[in-house]
């Protein structure tokens, strides 16, 4: 494999991110960009300040810090698994974007290796964000002395867990291909990752107990998840760093070797026969969603989460259906050709209604059998079902809104990732504010309802803006060109036979 060629493609995808993703949807507006970055910074800053004040009284208690770092390592592994799963789901839906590289002289392995760079970056960002508060507070309170311990407890475990998951994922992918299961390997791999996550989450309590018991008893028991801390304790930091470097190098080499020569999937939609009398009434928007491979992936993951929650109901199992809203992230961009048809023209509200209707149909299609299963298998869990389903509807509205604000052109995972990050920051900020203010429940419900109303209104405004841009495409493109003239050659084009039609104003 020619890694240099993979890096050329990786650089092209970076330009795709900077020039397309960061300049489409709401991100066209500089104030929105500043606001988005500010919100993320505010969330991280608030977390760091809260962690600082929480940890300040313990600054001199060496033992407590040791326990805290060990507990962080236990959480890091879970957090990286979540990030890895999220990123794999996003990239599994990225076939449209990969078509960009069809004309480039790259092998399928080189193409896959280029994507691994982005997968690792995204997973790294998600993983790092989860531990920013502790990291900043520890450095401020303990000074540079905290750095080696942060490396040992957080940074190195993040890297090793990610690499180990990658190697496992790639090797399993090879085994599935060898077994002739290439066509369904994506879904199988996601389910395996999810099972692994559930397995680790179920053992989190015992791992935490083992780590804390050892610390409290002044013992240095071997807890596999905190192996690096154990090596430091027994053989010193140099040995720990050496073990980390060797393991990371081996896992990286193994991951590169195991990267399969995977062909880009050629079908984004399943050819489902919608010929029965009732189903014939489905609109083109409904069919677009119900046939999309993204919706089916969401259904499979949702079913797996539902089964997991039925077995261990930490929340009402119907909350599993919230995963279905993931398909809403792609829905607006995927239905763009329908809005180009003159016969399909309608108001922005009507378009929004069509998008929501399709999501509700999908939700209803899954909710009916799930409620039936719940009533039969776990009737004790039926209470709160309405609330859970309401939450799923809210999730669908939020997902559609993200899809409109950050349209996933050619199913690119970057737009979805940025959209999810900004939405998480805004909703996180709202959650923190509600938590701090400790308002009466009825007021919280009203605020949530008002937030949803704003999301709906904002979505409709977004559709309106897109419609208006499309109708005025010629003028808008000319203005864009003049405004953004410095990015490209602004030389006079007037009167040239080579002028593109969008510039002939």
């Amino acid at each position: 494999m020619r890694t240099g060629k993979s890096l050329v493609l990786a650089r092209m995808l970076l330009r795709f991110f900077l020039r397309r993703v960061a300049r489409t949807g709401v991100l066209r507006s500089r104030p929105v960009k500043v606001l988005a970055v500010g919100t993320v910074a505010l969330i991280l800053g608030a977390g760091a300040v809260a962690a600082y004040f929480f940890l300040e009284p313990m600054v001199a208690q060496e033992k407590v810090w040791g326990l805290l770092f060990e507990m962080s390592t236990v959480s890091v592994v879970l957090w990286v698994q979540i990030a890895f799963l999220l990123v794999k789901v996003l990239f599994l839906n990225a076939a449209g974007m990969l078509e960009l590289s069809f004309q480039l002289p790259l092998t399928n392995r080189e193409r896959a290796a280029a994507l691994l760079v982005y997968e690792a970056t995204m997973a790294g960002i998600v993983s790092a964000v989860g531990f920013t508060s502790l990291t900043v507070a520890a450095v401020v309170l303990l000074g540079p002395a905290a750095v080696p311990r942060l490396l040992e407890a957080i940074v190195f475990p993040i890297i090793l867990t990610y690499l180990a998951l990658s190697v496992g994922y790639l090797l399993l992918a090879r085994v599935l291909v060898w077994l002739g299961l290439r066509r369904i390997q994506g879904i199988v791999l996601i389910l395996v990752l999810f099972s692994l996550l559930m397995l680790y989450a179920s053992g989190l309590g015992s791992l935490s107990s083992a780590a804390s018991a050892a610390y409290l008893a002044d013992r240095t028991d071997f807890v596999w998840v905190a192996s690096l801390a154990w090596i430091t304790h027994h053989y010193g930091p140099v040995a720990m760093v050496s073990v980390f470097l060797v393991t990371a190098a081996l896992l990286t080499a193994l991951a590169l070797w195991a990267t399969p020569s995977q062909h880009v999937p050629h079908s984004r939609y399943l050819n489902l026969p919608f010929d029965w009398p009732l189903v014939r009434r489905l609109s083109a928007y409904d069919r677009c969603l119900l046939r999309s491979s993204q919706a089916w992936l969401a259904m499979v993951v949702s079913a797996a989460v539902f089964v997991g929650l039925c077995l261990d109901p930490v929340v009402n199992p119907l909350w599993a259906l919230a995963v279905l809203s993931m398909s809403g992230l792609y829905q607006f961009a995927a239905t763009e050709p329908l809005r180009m048809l003159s016969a399909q023209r309608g108001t922005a509200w009507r378009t929004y209604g069509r998008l929501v209707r399709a999501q509700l149909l999908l939700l209803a299609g899954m909710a009916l059998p799930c409620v039936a299963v719940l009533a039969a298998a776990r009737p004790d869990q039926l209470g709160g079902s309405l609330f859970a389903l309401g939450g799923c509807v809210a999730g669908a509205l939020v997902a559609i809104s993200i899809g409109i604000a950050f349209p996933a052109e050619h199913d690119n995972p970057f737009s979805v990732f940025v959209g999810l990050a900004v939405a998480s920051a805004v909703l996180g900020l709202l959650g923190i504010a509600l938590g701090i203010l400790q308002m009466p429940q009825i007021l919280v419900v009203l605020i949530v309802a008002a937030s949803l109303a704003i999301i709906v209104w904002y979505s409709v405004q977004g559709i309106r803006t897109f419609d208006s841009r499309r109708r005025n495409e010629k003028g808008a493109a000319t203005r864009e060109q003049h405004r953004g003239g410095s990015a490209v050659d602004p030389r006079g084009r007037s009167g040239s036979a080579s002028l593109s039609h969008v510039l002939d104003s």
Partner: protein
Amino acid sequence: MPVLEAKGITYSYDGFVTVLEDVCFDINAGEIVGLLGPNGSGKSTLIKTVFDLLELQGGSVRLDGHEHSSPAAKSAAMYLASNDYLPQFLTGREYVDMLARLYDVEADPEAAARLFEMFSMGGRYHDLIEDYSHGMRKKTQLVSALLMRRPLTIIDETLNGIDIEALHLTERELTRLRDEGRSVVLCTHDFALLERLADRVLFLDHGLLVADADTAVLVEEHGSLADLVFGHLDAEHRRP
């Protein structure tokens, strides 16, 4: 040694409907070969399997003597897709530079700018591809191929949608490629163009290679390529 050796290519999208069945042909160095066939005959699938964009389900493909999925094979051939789906976020120059890095060739900016000028795109080399019209994007693909000058260039209906002047220029440049000993596969429905340009024609229908012969021979036998194709399509054995 042929620049492209395809032996027994078989492909099916769903495991039931066979799109390509035991397709065998060679492309020799220094020849222009036309690829003909109605929509759905398997032309684009054939091209994608040649470039390993679709997994080969049967047979083998070698490009310039290398197994088609190998890095060496990738360097030997260039694919111009039927759509105009180029990286719109790059400028024409950036796109050409990227291809040059991938093919390990020296991209001469002056030659590139000259070709842009020749194809009526003067002054647009540094513009974003996003601002190019459909025809300009296709011409950018052609210019890239002329700059990279690979042993084999496969053009999948890229010539549809470009203006007459550019088409005339393309014919001249493709002839020059052939004279240099390079090969071109031209997938098009333009029979007249193939009669003027192609040394040989492959005719694909329902995934089967129904003709593989010199253009002159086919024209002599059938009167014209159009008569060959329409005669086959109207034949009794082909009707449903």
